[in-house]
């Protein structure tokens, strides 16, 4: 059981090293620097060293984007069933219960309406902490219901996305959510209702390959990992090391796949002027 020993110099100097107190310091996911947690929090959860944007909670995201107190949640009661009676090392039913208890949410997407600098929008925000933000029947249904309302009331749709992709535990039903959500976005497009996708770290798989890539405008947060296949799958397939900044937002921008990278602190203002254009 020498998990950490080999990295430490021998000679008993471990006592002199600064101890990272749980909660006080944290390690940046991107530059690996040790940073002061309070400083990160004051900085809209952005690393002061490398500008990496840490994931933020759904509540913080809503506060960041919408005018204070204007958010009204819809369809909060929608919850997943277990149509496949799926069981791997654990039952899907138990995984769901676990995630619901841990997050206080019914599933991985929160939807509702609110105002951005006075302008009405339909807003959806993904919660990565709920089974990796994965899309099953509930997420699919909520995207469609949000799009339907945006269409009915002729209000722009804004989705803040982070997801590992389709939820395997719902099998083919989760795959079909890709088609359903894309069809709903197609209806919005035909009715000329603007839809803005904001991609945050990380966004992958069946979510990227459906509504996430269908925005009239696609924004991303700096350094967010965004792709179709996960880096591990690609590495195993091609048996090569991947380029350093592969699948980062900057890489996607360079390849013409997204419209713009917007730092978190300027997101509301940018979003507001985009919405005003339509």
């Amino acid at each position, binding site marked *: 059981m020498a998990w950490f020993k080999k990295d430490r110099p021998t000679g008993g100097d471990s006592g002199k090293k600064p101890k990272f107190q749980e909660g006080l310091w944290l390690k940046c996911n991107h530059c690996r620097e040790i940073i002061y947690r309070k400083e990160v929090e004051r900085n809209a959860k952005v690393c002061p060293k490398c500008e990496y944007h840490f994931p933020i909670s759904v509540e913080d995201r809503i506060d960041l984007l919408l005018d204070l107190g204007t958010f009204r949640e819809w369809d909060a009661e929608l919850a997943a069933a277990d149509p496949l009676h799926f069981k791997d090392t654990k039952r899907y039913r138990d995984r769901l219960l676990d995630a619901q208890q841990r997050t206080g949410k019914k599933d991985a997407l929160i939807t509702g309406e609110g105002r951005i600098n006075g302008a009405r929008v339909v807003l959806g925000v993904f919660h990565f902490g709920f089974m990796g933000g994965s899309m099953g*029947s509930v997420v699919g249904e909520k995207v469609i219901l949000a799009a339907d309302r945006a269409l009915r009331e002729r209000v722009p749709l804004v989705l803040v996305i982070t997801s590992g992709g389709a939820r395997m535990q719902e099998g083919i039903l989760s795959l079909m959510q890709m*088609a*359903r959500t894309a069809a709903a976005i197609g209806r919005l497009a035909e009715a000329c209702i603007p839809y803005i996708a904001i991609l945050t770290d990380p966004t992958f798989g069946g979510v990227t*390959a*459906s509504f996430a890539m269908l925005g009239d405008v696609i924004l991303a947060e700096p350094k967010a990992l965004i*792709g179709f296949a996960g880096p591990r799958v690609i590495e195993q397939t091609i048996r090569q090391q991947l380029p350093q900044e592969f*699948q980062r937002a900057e890489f996607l921008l360079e390849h013409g796949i997204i419209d713009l990278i917007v730092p978190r602190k300027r997101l509301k203002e940018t979003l507001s002027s985009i919405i005003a254009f339509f």
Partner: protein
Amino acid sequence: MREYLDFEKPLAELEEKLDKLSAAATSRTGAQEDLTKLRARLHQLQTEIYAGLTPWQRTQVARHLQRPSTLDYIGRICDNFVELHGDRAFADDHAIVGGLARMNGRPIVVIGHQKGKTLKERMHRNFGMPNPEGYRKALRLMRLADKFRKPVVTFIDTPGAYPGIGAEERGQAEAIARNLMEMATLKTPIVSVVIGEGGSGGALAIGVADRLLMMQNSVYSVISPEGCAAILWNDAGKAPEAAEALKMTARDLQDLGILDEIIPEPMGGAHRDPMFACDAVKKSIEIHLTALQELPLETLLQQRYDKYRRIGVLAT
């Protein structure tokens, strides 16, 4: 040369015996009788094995190297076929084929994944795993169908969209997403047939349809059993368990309300009698296209939307 799957080993022995016996049949009295008996036993054994196929075994049949491919089906069921190439932007993807065809005189645009049979062919076809330009070629052909109001028939047979650096650079996710959206509103009937392996988003990207049909031994899933086992069981060796859990057979999809029809295969799988399989596929496509082409466009599109709108199960 027949290729046998693991669970077909008893059949292999019996068939070998049968071949030997029929070669020597004329030189011995009573041989005819033995032959008849042996054939009956073979048939019985085959029926038993195929009646009880597990989802994992069915996956292997769906992936069988000799299984009829998209081009086999097109060659057999279409009166003629003019293949069209390329996405007019980057390249011609050999993992997706498509073009203009006639089936019983009816003009159709036909598109499908192409896997290939020999190793050389399979490499040329990238094992049926398309890059973005493959999906964009498919979309170009579907728009052509839309413009000239010709129905679209697609054949699905892929392990999935190719996970490569170039694919990501050129927007694999965008290519798939765009197809899903455009197929949902394409102003012409679409019939999709899963002929082998329906691998995730890479399959769905040419599979949003008014009618979804599956061959009896085909599979369709959100992730391969191996991939699912590696992630959820942490052990790719648990693929048989994953195949079971994912509910990926034609029967499963029918139970889940996603499928419109299961097309029967000959005993032992489509590769045992490709003509039988092709004719069954042709008959089904004919019936569905005829019905769909009678619908007013608005009804067709509304029914397509409603069909997808209903999919999914929520807690009550």
